[in-house]
């Protein structure tokens, strides 16, 4: 067994996450469902608690003291998020309810402005349903189509035909940075550069990327980027859409209501400046503050240290899993983050998940909202163990022992 990484004191870090001490069916919890949602450190819980205890108020509206403090905290979070992903301006950060809403927002407003009959939107064969269905809805309405970058048996994108695909009426490319089902890190730089050569903007679904590695929107030169707070140690129900200023200025608003307007009369409404043009109604103030605290926490640990610790764990996990007879990995990309997806013999993933659960081991089973991938491999789903920096080699050992026990019971 490898020793815990020396770049992060994992045992110490684990103490920041009270839930990790939970017992499940009498066993210490082994939480390996981090791609579904991560646990929250005390710092995040405290920041949200403190907001409600001390400065709860509506933002941007009140002349009163508390409203000012709430607004300051809320806007400070936007600055932290902008810095975290290397955005040029804080007003390029639009608050949403999560990655799904971020993508739906772009799909709706981009289609309204730019998509016409015969056009297409290009996604990849390994997208989450959240990055397929919004485009299908938008395209259906405009008489456009959704095209797909194919994937190979290793779970990697096949980019040979990309230039040809891009030259066939594509108006926008929307791909994930890291696959939630396979863990593949996609060569998004190449995709963005290729798309830009054709003058096509790119949206990155970074829901499975920002918690594992440094993502810099200016360096990537990406046009839109979406991620969810709850997958990066922040609260649920909150998320981010980054958009380049010029795009956000050009696109029409998404929803109408309070906050997003400058003046309203029955004849004409003028919209507010960025980012408020896209933020109708009273927002999730505590959510923003919670995500800000989560990003502070991640940065205090350091993304390079997180990446190293998770990489060591991934290598250890891959080796340990592959020692199990009859186990096959689904997705064999050399370049991967966070996710170990596998099947054992002809054991149904649901049966495996249930027996692991009884041993206190939390994994996800099923198609992971990425049915096209499962169809490609002709499987009903996979068992997915997904890692965070607070996981340990000892927990991987619990997983492999748990799998062996399940094999004995189910075999």
């Amino acid at each position, binding site marked *: 067994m490898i020793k815990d990484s020396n770049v992060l004191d994992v045992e110490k870090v684990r103490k920041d996450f009270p839930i990790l001490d939970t017992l499940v069916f009498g066993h210490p919890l082994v939480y390996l469902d981090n791609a579904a949602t991560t646990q929250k450190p005390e710092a995040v819980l405290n920041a949200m608690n403190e907001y409600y205890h001390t400065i709860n108020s509506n933002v941007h509206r009140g002349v009163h003291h508390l409203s000012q403090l709430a607004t300051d905290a809320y806007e400070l979070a936007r600055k932290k998020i902008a810095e975290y992903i290397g955005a040029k301006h804080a007003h390029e950060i639009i608050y949403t309810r999560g990655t799904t809403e971020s993508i739906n927002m772009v799909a709706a407003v981009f289609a309204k402005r730019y998509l016409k009959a015969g056009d297409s939107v290009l996604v990849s064969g390994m997208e989450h349903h959240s990055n397929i269905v919004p485009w299908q809805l938008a395209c259906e309405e405009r008489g456009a189509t959704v095209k797909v970058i194919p994937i190979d048996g290793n779970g990697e994108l096949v980019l040979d035909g990309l230039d040809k695909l891009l030259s066939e009426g594509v108006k926008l490319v929307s791909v994930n940075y890291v696959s939630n089902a396979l863990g593949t890190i996609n060569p998004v730089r190449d995709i963005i550069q290729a798309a830009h050569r054709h003058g096509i903007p790119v949206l990155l679904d970074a829901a499975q990327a920002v918690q594992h590695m440094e993502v810099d929107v200016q360096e990537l030169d990406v046009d839109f980027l979406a991620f969810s707070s709850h997958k990066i140690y922040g609260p649920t129900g909150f998320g981010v859409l980054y958009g380049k200023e010029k795009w956000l200025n050009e696109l029409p608003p998404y929803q109408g209501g309070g906050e997003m307007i400058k003046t309203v009369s029955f004849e004409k409404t003028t919209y507010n400046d960025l980012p408020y043009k896209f933020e109708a109604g009273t927002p999730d103030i505590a959510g923003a503050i919670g995500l800000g605290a989560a990003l502070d926490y991640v940065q205090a640990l350091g993304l390079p240290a997180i990446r190293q610790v998770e990489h060591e764990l991934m290598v250890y996990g891959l080796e340990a899993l592959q020692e199990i007879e009859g186990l096959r990995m689904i997705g064999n990309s050399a370049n991967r983050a966070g996710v170990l997806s596998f099947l054992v013999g002809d*054991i*149904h993933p*649901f049966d495996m998940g249930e027996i692991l659960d*009884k041993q206190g081991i939390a994994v996800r*089973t*099923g198609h992971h909202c990425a049915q096209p991938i499962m169809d490609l491999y002709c499987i009903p789903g996979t068992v997915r163990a997904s890692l965070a920096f607070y996981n340990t080699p000892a927990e991987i050992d619990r997983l492999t022992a748990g799998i062996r026990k399940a094999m004995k*019971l189910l075999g």
Partner: protein
Amino acid sequence: MTIKEKQDEIIGDFEFLGNWDDKYEYIIQLGKELAPMDPIYKIDENLIRGCQSRVWMHPEYKDGVITFTADSDAVITKGLVSLVISVLSGHTPKEIIDADLYFIDAIGLSSHLSPTRSNGLLSMVKQIKMYALAYQAKSLQS
């Protein structure tokens, strides 16, 4: 035996099984031993879609009682399917409609009937009751 007696017998059997692995071993065994379904009935029309595991079920109404055959692609689900069928098969539509399936909860597998689990078993129980209702309506007409 009545539906209630059958359920009580299952609960009694499970009381002898000490820990969770024994219970699961038993359910898995039942799944493996479930009489195979005639392939002609293993078709999409008989498929009950859960989110994760699939269940096929076929009813036959004869001499006033309904007999069910079924299959599932997940063996734990199949074991539970086997238990449900053994409890409800061979009863009249009215007995099936009125049946309260308390044994799944009592043997500690209630999570299989949770709508969030969506593994096919809950949908299967609903489907069985639907068939019973349909056969009851049919028998009242004739």
